[in-house]
């Protein structure tokens, strides 16, 4: 080739230029992956706030006070217990009258159908549940209520949030594995809708107030 015979423009300095650029990007790079816990805030209240009446057994109250102590249903507890307790609360395996009510999916569908303008998407999902999982599926009425003081440390708050979200994720994964042998995130959209209908992110956060104890 010609390269051998005529001396070429020295390409050695090209490396230097590239190095310079490389070092610039190396320095400016922040490799941190942005991760976090996704949540949805409730839309702002419109008009006067109405208290939604919920049966006491369907509300699982977690309190965090300003000294970062956690109370589950009024009893001082450890953060590590939350996950287990939330799972128990949602599934209510022993039909404990103090834990959340379980509504059979057929009742849910009838309930939706009897409304003035039934939500067709919801009915479709209920039908999918019946078709794919059978009629014995129960849907919980339970809601986790998380209340904190203004003096609570954000770190503690997020730790508790994390446990609740973790509990729901565990439930979803269990259901997904049992039914389809896959993890929740690997399911298709229709299957994910089924799972999220059975185990919704039912976390309610109270309007802020000061908790004495």
């Amino acid at each position, binding site marked *: 080739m010609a390269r051998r015979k005529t001396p070429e423009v020295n390409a*050695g300095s090209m490396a230097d230029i590239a190095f310079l650029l490389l070092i610039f990007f190396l320095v400016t790079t922040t490799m941190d992956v942005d991760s*976090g816990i996704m949540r949805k805030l409730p839309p702002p209240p419109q008009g006067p706030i109405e208290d939604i009446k919920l049966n006491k057994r369907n509300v699982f109250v977690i309190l965090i006070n300003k000294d970062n102590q956690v109370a589950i249903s009024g009893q001082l507890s450890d953060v590590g217990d939350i996950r287990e307790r939330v799972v128990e609360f949602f599934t209510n395996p022993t039909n404990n009258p103090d834990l959340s009510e379980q509504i059979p999916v057929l009742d849910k569908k009838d309930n939706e159908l009897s409304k003035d303008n039934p939500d067709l998407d919801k009915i479709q999902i209920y039908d999918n549940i019946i078709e794919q999982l059978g009629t014995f599926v129960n849907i919980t009425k339970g809601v986790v209520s998380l209340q904190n003081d203004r003096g609570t*440390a*954000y770190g503690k708050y997020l730790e508790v949030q*994390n446990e609740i979200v973790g509990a729901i994720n565990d439930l979803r994964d269990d259901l997904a594995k049992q039914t389809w042998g896959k993890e929740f995130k690997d399911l298709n959209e229709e299957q994910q809708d089924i799972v999220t209908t059975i185990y919704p992110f039912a976390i309610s956060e109270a309007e802020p107030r000061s908790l004495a104890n």
Partner: protein
Amino acid sequence: MAKFSKKSKGDSPAISTASLPDIIFMLLFFFMVSTTMKEVEYKVTIKLPEASEAKKIENKSLVSYIYVGPPNKSWTAQYGTKPVIQLNDQIAKLENIQQWVEEERGQRDEVDVPKMTYSLKIDEEVDMGIVTDLKQELRFAQALKINYSSKRITQK
């Protein structure tokens, strides 16, 4: 063989460095693609909490960041030591948030606005008071998709 030895007997050619730039360019492109320029200069110190359920945020172009924490050393003289809110490059007040949300929306395509996520980077020592106020403001600005930024840790 004869050909080989003949050549090496003459002036031994220097190893060609012509392919070195190619290698470096390859590295360069890798870093260019994977780079996320630091979005802003932090005026607050933030130590993110850890969470096992944290998930990676997809679609970074649709994420707006809000920082909350005590001001940096160089800013304590101006802003004190109490936790403050930083939006973009500036320390902001709670009242500025709704306007800021509008500005952030204006920078995106209209179709993307409902997909926008607000990432809250909050120091773990901050009291919930300011966080609650912030969330309240976001609610009124109809910025409902939020992300509590936290470091991902593997489950214990």
